[in-house]
């Protein structure tokens, strides 16, 4: 029987790991993710989780040990955030290139400098070109569910890509919410044992992993990572469907909210989606035709679903906690790519907000709405807008 309880997203991530039964976990403490390895340590110490937990000396070694273990053919898991993920950067490419289905739970946190431990998505967004799949959780239940889903997708033979699941620092990592812990038997059925077909470091079938590729072979190796990302799109839908059947919770790459006759659709990810949905309700009460959409899956980028969504809106307002300097947010870039060659397309307006743990309030969203309405009315507008800036101290 599933257990209904309350817990923080970090605990939910540790529970997901426990349910997925990875054989090797390697982790290093970092705010706001530290509770994940702490909780896992408890599980291991109590014999509730039979995993080798390697208490490494850095995040670089955490992911390196995961790559070694995954190359040896076992399920592996780690958790990190921010600078820790940035320190892993080099090895993230390697894990994807070697097609190792490692899963990382990330407590989404800003990057230095200045050092800041609070929430935005710059850490995971900065890893969007590594080849990893990326899921973002809106709440603690999603954090748990998406980690289980991540293992299932990552280990699919057509995918074989590492996957990171992001959940917002403090807003989720340290906030207690109701969570349903699924039944272990059902999870066992859902995930099954990981049986590596290509990576196993077995003396009976010695192979060489992590080769050097000359220009004659490198592009093909990279292309297979592209192909695997493409394959993941269908696999994710299948796994979402299977998950719903087994556990009763429905997921989709993009979750829409009151978009049907919407003129302005606010698009975001993670915990901000909750605020935005409430804001849409508030606007609807005032008679403003607004809707919301949340990307649960960011990589592979759900371009088709974005096009579908775009068909329903006149203005898409992208609310994002990340920035590419001199360009704008990552969603703005990705939505532009998905829509650029469409005959009919909405206007895209980009809003950079909530960086480094800055609260996003209705007042901020009002500011975004006002600019979006200008765009809707055909007036001049800024494409990229920093919302909630304290201009008085600049």
């Amino acid at each position: 029987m599933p257990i209904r309880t309350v817990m923080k997203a970090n605990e939910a991530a540790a529970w997901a790991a426990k349910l997925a039964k990875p054989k090797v976990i390697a982790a290093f403490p970092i705010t706001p993710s530290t509770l994940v390895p702490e909780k896992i340590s408890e599980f291991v110490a109590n014999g509730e989780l039979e995993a080798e937990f390697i208490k490494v000396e850095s995040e670089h070694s955490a992911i390196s040990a995961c790559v070694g273990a995954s190359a040896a053919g076992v399920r592996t898991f780690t958790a990190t955030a921010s600078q820790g993920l940035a320190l892993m950067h080099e090895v993230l490419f390697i894990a994807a290139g070697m097609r190792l289905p490692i899963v990382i739970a990330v407590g989404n946190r800003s990057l230095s400098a200045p050092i800041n431990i609070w929430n935005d998505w710059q850490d995971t967004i900065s890893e969007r070109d590594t080849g990893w799949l990326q899921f973002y959780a809106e709440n603690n239940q999603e954090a748990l569910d998406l980690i289980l889903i991540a293992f299932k997708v990552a280990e699919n033979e057509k995918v074989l890509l590492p996957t990171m699941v992001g959940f917002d620092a403090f807003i989720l990592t340290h906030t207690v919410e109701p969570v349903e812990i699924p039944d272990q038997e059902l999870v066992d059925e859902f995930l099954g044992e990981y049986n590596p077909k290509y990576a196993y470091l077995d003396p009976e079938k010695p192979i060489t992993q992590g080769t050097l590729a000359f220009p004659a072979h490198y592009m093909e190796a990279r292309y297979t990572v592209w192909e695997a990302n493409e394959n993941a799109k269908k696999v994710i839908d299948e796994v979402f469907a299977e998950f719903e059947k087994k556990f009763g919770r429905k997921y989709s790459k993009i979750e829409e909210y009151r978009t049907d006759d919407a003129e302005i659709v606010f698009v975001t990810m993670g915990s901000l989606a909750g605020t935005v949905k409430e804001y849409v309700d508030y606007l609807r009460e005032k008679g403003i035709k607004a809707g919301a959409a949340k990307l649960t899956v960011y990589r592979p980028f759900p371009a088709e679903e974005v096009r579908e969504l775009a068909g329903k809106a006149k203005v898409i307002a992208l609310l994002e906690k990340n920035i590419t300097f001199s360009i704008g947010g990552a969603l703005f870039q990705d939505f532009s790519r998905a829509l650029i060659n469409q005959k009919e397309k909405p206007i895209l307006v980009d809003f950079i907000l909530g960086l480094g743990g800055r609260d996003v309030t209705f007042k901020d969203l009002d500011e975004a709405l006002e600019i979006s309405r200008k765009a809707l009315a055909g007036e001049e507008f800024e494409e990229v807008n920093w919302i909630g800036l304290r201009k008085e101290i600049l």
Partner: protein
Amino acid sequence: MAVRKSPITTREYWAPGHAACAGCGCATALKLATKAFSEAMEEKYGDPNAFAIAQATGCMEVVSAVFPYTAWKAPWVHVAFENAAAAASGVEAAWKKLGRKGKILAIGGDGGTADIGMQALSGMLERRHNVVYLMYDNEAYMNTGIQRSSSTPYGAWTTTSPPGKYSIGEDKPKKWVALIAAAHQVPYVATASIGNPFDFVKKMKKAAKVDGPAFVQVHCTCPTGWKSPLEKGVEIARLAIETGVWPLFEIENGDFFNIKIQAPGGGAKVKREGGRVVAIEFKKPIEEYLKLQGRFKHLFKQPEAIDEMREQIKAMWKVLGVDVTLPKPEE
């Protein structure tokens, strides 16, 4: 005449056709290391193949694993430059959970070990993984084209320690990673050399058989980087031992008061007290070692630099608890 048995297994884990330079001392080291490992695994577990290799980026990685080929006949993985020890930790943990018997061999060059991989190495040793870390020490970043590492010896020319008006070449003493490894109080640490392959094989076997981490630092000639004649590779490594430049020692459980020193040969007189080597009187001057290598050629115009080198070698031996005398060449 009765046919003597080969002193080492004829099983091969390192196949020809790899792209190492002709006369590569590191290639010899890896060939012997894997054979030694195989013998140890056979003796310990009854399975000569019970090992896997995790290797750092470096010469021996790029010459051996070029897609779609591989020179390796053992399970082998390469991740990056600085993390062979961390990757090996992961492989070892996975093997433990899989209930697989055997040992993991981590391999890195001096750059990948003494410099960029130092932290991962320390972590692996401290966590007591059942891994042997083999550092093949050719005393510079050879893969990128001969740049100095912290394991480059005093006086050596490299492309980033060129001798010049204000430079004698590398101006820092060599960093001895084996001593740092031993400070982790791991079961077994040794230095070895391709100049004494029987000693090297013996030590690799011992390292492979201990329970827990071990570290072996093997001196390997790089004819390309040392500017030395191809055929002299083993001879040069042997001269390093015989002249006192390369000490052969073993440290068990970090017991620095009971370091086992191997007799260097070359006519050196070894003085023992209570079984411990306390003094060595070398007979061959270090010049015999230096003169065969282009990387030290410039020093012969600066004999004071060679004397400085002698002082540094003495100081290094002092750390090992051995008083050495190093002769000057006869006029």
